[in-house]
């Protein structure tokens, strides 16, 4: 049922497009927003709907780092790896998240709760080093803050 709803949402978006020519990237943005990621099944569907080859869709999905074919965690930790963050120790922070969550960069933790990614510069260099968790910003953090952030995020759901 969930899935049917999701495809209906995607249909609504695609059918509402004024011009389909060149719309592949915006359709994929929408599809990822709906499904959370872009598995092959979704890619095939988009290809069919837009009348382009599935190989072309796959080529675009794998070209752009914003698109992912892997399911993400419930909490998406993005560690900014821009230069300002890098010279202020972002590498150590990324390592610390992976160590505490038992993940590798780009992977999901075993309980499916967290995924850890290195992000391209978000341009908030005044707050370096900086991370985001599901879009919420945490600036000027250190290795020592990592455990607290993980707890805070988990705690927020416990109260849901």
């Amino acid at each position, binding site marked *: 049922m969930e899935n049917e709803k999701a495809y209906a949402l995607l249909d609504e978006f695609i059918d509402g497009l004024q011009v389909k*020519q*060149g*719309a*592949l*990237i*915006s359709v*994929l*943005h929408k599809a990822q927003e709906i499904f959370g990621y872009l598995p092959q099944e979704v890619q095939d569907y988009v290809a069919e709907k837009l009348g382009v080859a599935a190989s*072309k869709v796959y*080529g*675009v999905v794998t*070209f*752009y*780092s*914003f*698109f992912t074919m892997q399911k993400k965690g419930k909490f998406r930790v993005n560690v900014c*790896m*821009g*230069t*300002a963050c*890098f*010279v*202020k120790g972002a590498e150590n922070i990324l390592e610390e998240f992976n*160590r505490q969550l038992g993940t590798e960069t780009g992977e999901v933790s075993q309980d499916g709760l967290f995924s850890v990614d290195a*992000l*391209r*510069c*978000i*341009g*908030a*260099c*005044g*707050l*370096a080093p*900086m991370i985001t968790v599901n*879009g919420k*910003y945490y*600036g000027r953090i250190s290795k020592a803050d990592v455990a607290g952030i993980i707890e805070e995020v988990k705690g927020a759901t416990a109260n849901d």
Partner: protein
Amino acid sequence: MISSGAELNAYKNKVLAGGSKYVSGECDVVYVGMATCGIAAGAEAVFDALNAEVQGRGVVVVPTGCIGMCYAEPLVEIKKQGKPSVFVSGADAETARKVVAEYLDGGDSSAVLPDTRGDKQTRIALRNCGVIDPTKIDDYIAVGGYEALAKVLTEMGREGVISEMKKSGLRGRGGAGFSTGLKWEFGAKSEGAKKYIICNADEGDPGAFMDRSILEGDPHSVLEAMAIAAFAVGADEGIFYIRAEYPLAVKRLETAIAQATELGLLGDNIMGTGFDFKLSISLGAGAFVCGEETALLNSLEGKRGEPRLRPPFPAQKGLWDKPTVNNNVETYANIPAIILRGADWFRSVGTEKCPGTKVFALAGKINNVGLVEVPMGTTLREIVYEIGGGLPDGKAFKAIQTGGPSGGCIPAQHLDMGVDYESLGSIGSMMGSGGMIVMDEDDCMVNIAKFYLDFTMEESCGKCTPCRIGNTRLHEILEKITDGNGTEDDLTQLKDLAQTIKSTSLCGLGNSAPNPVLSTLHFFADEYLAHVNEKKCPSHTCKNLIRYIITEKCIGCGICAKVCPVNCISGEPKKLHSIDQSRCIKCGECLPKCPSKVGAIVIE
């Protein structure tokens, strides 16, 4: 609807007497910086608290874009009539509320700070950032917005605009520095009923946030400039290509486009002159190479962002094979000011070959991280020490990196160089889009080169061999060196390979990707030699080349052993401890824990 220049003027007078009165300084104003950085630091709560506080005081609280003092976020600026601005920095909502109320009431002012931006800056591109509410078109019109468009449409004519732009000497602020007027002329001369204007807002350089700040702080100036460009080249459609990583900038742009369309400043028959122009937004999807203009065109067409061969140039054959003119955000932001104040005024700022200003995102190991705009020709020393306030913690300056992954690292001996396109190019770096990252004695230049190569290697689109394979090989050699397995022969190979990639790659990404390697090899050769010959990392960064050791000073307190995550520190209480090097992961946890008066742990 505004359907003539006269109506625009009447509208301006109306808003100046109404809701936008504060821009003329006729009342006290409290600004809250609410660009991405400000919001991330908690500016929304501060804004709400201040807004509630000033009710009934005749004071306006304005949510504004980047004020430029990023290190001080969340930042509040208080402008009392007839007084210089003062600031409240880094305060939570409650503290900010108290301090602002006290200052407005004429009370204790010791808690507010003076303006630290100094007198070295000249704001042209950023003229409205931090001055108006970017979500209100009325505020933009109140400061003279859309008057340049009116002037262009009703007085100057297409050729007039192009000749004024050529005369101004404005050069592309995206990094290449090509004459904007010439680019427009090529576009205007191209045959075709359909033409496109594009704004490149794919600000991909890590450590650069000028374009984001302009779009978040003054989106209308970019819209207006695109309409001017469209008129000059004969286009009727414009597209913003913007990074998906900048959600707030996208939102502000959407608001601005909707407002301008509603007032008739975009759309059909603008100001009754018969000129039609519509604008849309297209999101990038995280590919650095799409900042290259032909790759950007492919991405707009829904394809992989691979660059195209040139010629034909986009001005002849661009988006969907139609003539296309593409400028960067900061370039556009300069244009309404140039049109209104004239090319001669613009040329009076900056240098002969590079008139005007440049916005830099100053970040890294610097006290005043921020967005600065200085006349071309300002020296690096003025930027780092006078505007940037020098380096924190008394550390020594080592290098300043300009131009992002395409640029180079500039050492202290060149600090007195005036900054422009040519001077930066002459020492192996480049202007790029304007990121400036300051590095101190703790930064290993070999590791920095590796960091950039790691970036370009991943971002190479793979279309041409020198960039795809060459940069991967460069990265491997750098990895070998930072791992402690490098030889002097590797340094020769690095240099040869870097030069080959530079001269044989298809697009700007490959042509410039080896710059960080070449510039660090040139200016910091001794660091490379220390890595390969002595197997030492002078800045103690490369983990395979350092050892943590406990010296005779150890008092045997055991604190270090407790914090070691891999339990590799051992020793009897009150006796000398030691680190098992075979198990040490060099995390560095132990070092700061050793009591400062003991200082027994050192890096070798």
